[in-house]
């Protein structure tokens, strides 16, 4: 190795060092509202992450193309790949939080990343929005000022599943055995406290089956299930774990009608390849994300027909894609709500957007004009209630498409509310936070 090559190497190292340092210099005056998009298009959850990320971005493109932004303020966005890894997620968060005058809100797409950034969000004063996931106790807005688990949490989801099961069992779960097959991570463990609480109150048994991530190997789990014959299986899975689990259920002969999957395990890509083998598989939807409405047509007209689409056009209407659009819609509406208070046509600061999230009021009319009338029911948030209104339905895979299998459900708050209070209070105590009053 000659000196020349060495010198060249040293130079490139110096260039590398020099290049990394000025990264954060981005203090230009903002004329666009910046929305960071944390996504995972690689890794174990990629099958779920791709349509979700496409949906999030597509809706922002639609707003820019159709309306020219929010009251004339264009939306700027940037994706950052997290691969569902907490350390990478933190890096993305740090990279994007101050961009373009301040990030409007982080949809981290991961419970683990949500845990990691929640503490930071208090200090940095940016919104963490976790529709349908994240920390269930963060619904308590008095403690979690910056977190918004909109539309539902894992506790409300588990509660609704139990309600649907109870309905099938003629009102009582007593003496039943309900299994939870879950991704062994904070994501999968989240529903456990609620299940245990309800099990103690209603006299059914909860059996836990953790599946080691990424969850491609589940043979032993489903063999155990065959042995122990639980009456129902709640399936907390995502990404590559879902089809693997359904296939094992099929192989071990566990009836798919007895499986209830969380929303992240109930999208088209999860069951399409299995087709008839997954017939009867139930999934809960966040509001009614299996429906199609005007927004899908407009997306096609304004974005996909002009070749501006993020993903393949066939992805429009897939549950995960629709859910991505819902999440972006909530973000955009929060910005719009904030603008109504702080000045239309202005770029909102993260704190103003937070106000918007806290004062969301999406009425049925409003949702209809947004093109989400079929997809969602009215949602209203408040200072104390950061979840808004949780609605859910059960959908069933009939071998070729999802069909509605239940009416609307709302979670039973008798068990959830005390649990939210208890866990939020514990968090506040651990962190020395003083809950604000929502008078």
């Amino acid at each position, binding site marked *: *190795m000659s*000196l020349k090559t*060495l010198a060249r*190497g*040293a130079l490139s190292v110096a260039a*590398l060092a020099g*290049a*990394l*340092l000025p*990264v*954060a*210099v981005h203090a230009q005056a903002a004329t666009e509202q910046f929305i960071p998009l944390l*996504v995972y*298009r*690689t890794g174990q959850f*990629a099958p779920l992450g*791709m349509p979700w*990320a496409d949906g999030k971005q597509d809706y922002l493109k639609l707003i820019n193309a159709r309306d020219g932004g929010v009251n004339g303020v264009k939306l700027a966005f940037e*994706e*950052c*790949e997290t*691969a569902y890894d*907490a*350390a990478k997620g*933190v*890096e993305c968060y*740090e*990279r994007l939080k*101050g961009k373009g005058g301040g990030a409007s809100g982080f949809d981290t797409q991961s*419970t*683990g990343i949500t*845990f*990691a950034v*929640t*503490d*930071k969000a208090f*200090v940095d004063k940016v919104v963490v929005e976790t529709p349908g996931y994240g*920390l269930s106790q963060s619904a308590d807005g008095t403690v979690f000022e910056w977190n918004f688990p909109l539309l539902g949490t894992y506790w409300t989801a588990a509660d609704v599943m139990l309600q649907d099961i109870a309905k099938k069992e003629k009102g009582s779960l007593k003496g039943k055995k309900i299994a939870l097959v879950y991704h*062994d*991570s*904070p994501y999968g*463990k*989240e529903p*456990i*406290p609620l299940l245990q609480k309800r099990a103690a109150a209603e006299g059914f048994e909860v059996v836990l089956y*953790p599946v080691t*991530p990424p969850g491609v190997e589940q043979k032993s789990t489903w063999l155990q299930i065959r042995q122990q014959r639980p009456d129902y299986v709640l399936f907390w899975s995502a990404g590559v774990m879902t089809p693997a689990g359904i296939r094992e259920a099929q192989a071990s002969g566990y009836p798919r009608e007895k499986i209830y999957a969380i929303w992240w395990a109930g999208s088209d890509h999860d069951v399409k390849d299995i087709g008839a083998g997954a017939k009867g598989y139930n999934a809960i939807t966040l509001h009614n994300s299996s429906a199609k409405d005007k927004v899908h047509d407009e997306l096609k007209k304004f974005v996909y027909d002009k070749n501006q689409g993020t993903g393949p056009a066939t992805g429009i209407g897939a549950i995960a894609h629709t859910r991505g659009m819902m999440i972006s819609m909530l973000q955009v509406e929060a910005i719009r709500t904030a603008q109504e208070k702080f000045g239309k046509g202005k770029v909102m600061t993260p704190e103003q957007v937070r106000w918007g999230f806290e004062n969301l009021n999406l009425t049925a009319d409003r949702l209809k004009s947004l093109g989400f009338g079929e997809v969602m029911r009215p949602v209203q948030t408040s200072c104390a209630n950061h979840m808004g209104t949780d609605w859910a339905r059960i959908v069933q895979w009939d071998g070729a498409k999802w069909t509605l299998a239940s009416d609307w459900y709302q979670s039973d708050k008798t068990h959830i509310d005390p649990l939210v209070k208890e*866990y939020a209070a514990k968090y506040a105590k*651990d*962190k*020395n936070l003083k809950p604000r009053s929502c008078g």
Partner: protein
Amino acid sequence: MFYRENGQFKASYRADLALFPVAQDRRAVLALALIAFVAVPWLASDYTFRAVLIPFLVLSLAALGLNVLVGYCGQISLGTGAFMAVGAYAAYNLQVRIEGMPLLLSLIGGGLAATVCGVLFGLPSLRIRGLYLAVATLAAQFFIDWFTNRVPWVTNNSSSGSVSVGTLQLFGLPLETPAQRYLLCLSLVVVCGILTKNLVRGAIGREWMAMRDMDVAAAVIGIRPVHAKLTAFAVSSFIVGVAGALWGFVHLGAWEPAAFGIDKSFQLLFMIIIGGLGSIVGSFFGAAFIVLLPLLLNHVPHWLGLPLSTAAASHLEHMIFGALIVFFLIVEPHGLARLWSTARQKLRLWPFPH
């Protein structure tokens, strides 16, 4: 021309044994320390601290610890992630369970817990070596993974299995800004670096290296294998444990067991292989390579304004990174540290090599 040691005479043993015998080295290191301690906290941005410098420092520390074991004592370990986890969870429990526990003591406590664990899992090294030992240390990884996932006590009965630390305080002062956190990491790295450097050039370091080069011969000349191997495990796990505690407390703030999975063990092993086995500075090079290069590759498409999709950029990053690893290992199998020392040798003669 600039890197000549002509005329630097060593008049005492003390001078001959100095940490940096060459005056230019001394000055360069001092300047570097000055920049790191004084200039960087003023100049660097939030992002640079939190996403670049702090992870780099913490992983350098972990790599340094691993290098003691693998590079100096020749005991291949795949359990580094586990020892980091022990450090992190032990420090967390000390903080949570003892009211008013000083941060520094929890960090050291984390290190000590990792030491105990490391010595325990180091016992098989007395009978097995090489690749077989690597497999045995894998047991540590799997056991700790299981332990942190399954024993609720470890995570203070956290329902989700994820733990998070409260506000950090050092000597009564809150550690809030990234610059303060960076300085804490930097100080610990410097202290551990100096201690390790002195250990490896002292009697005990010679024992480790003798063990590494040929354990039978080492035993014949009177080195106790039990002592040499277990001290290496102890020192290494202590440093790794402290690094683990820093990773959890300072970098992540909240973490789940997956943060210290087998991936982390491999990552650290690759760091020291690429950086240079048996070299202190190699640990830093390796950490820089593994931590900074992917970040840089990730940023490049943005700077150039390439319209790459996120997924394509991410895949490309992996491919280029992989290719660079292969390239560097072919060019210099002994790691970046060897490149560095070759460069210094050449510099001594430059510009008149003959």
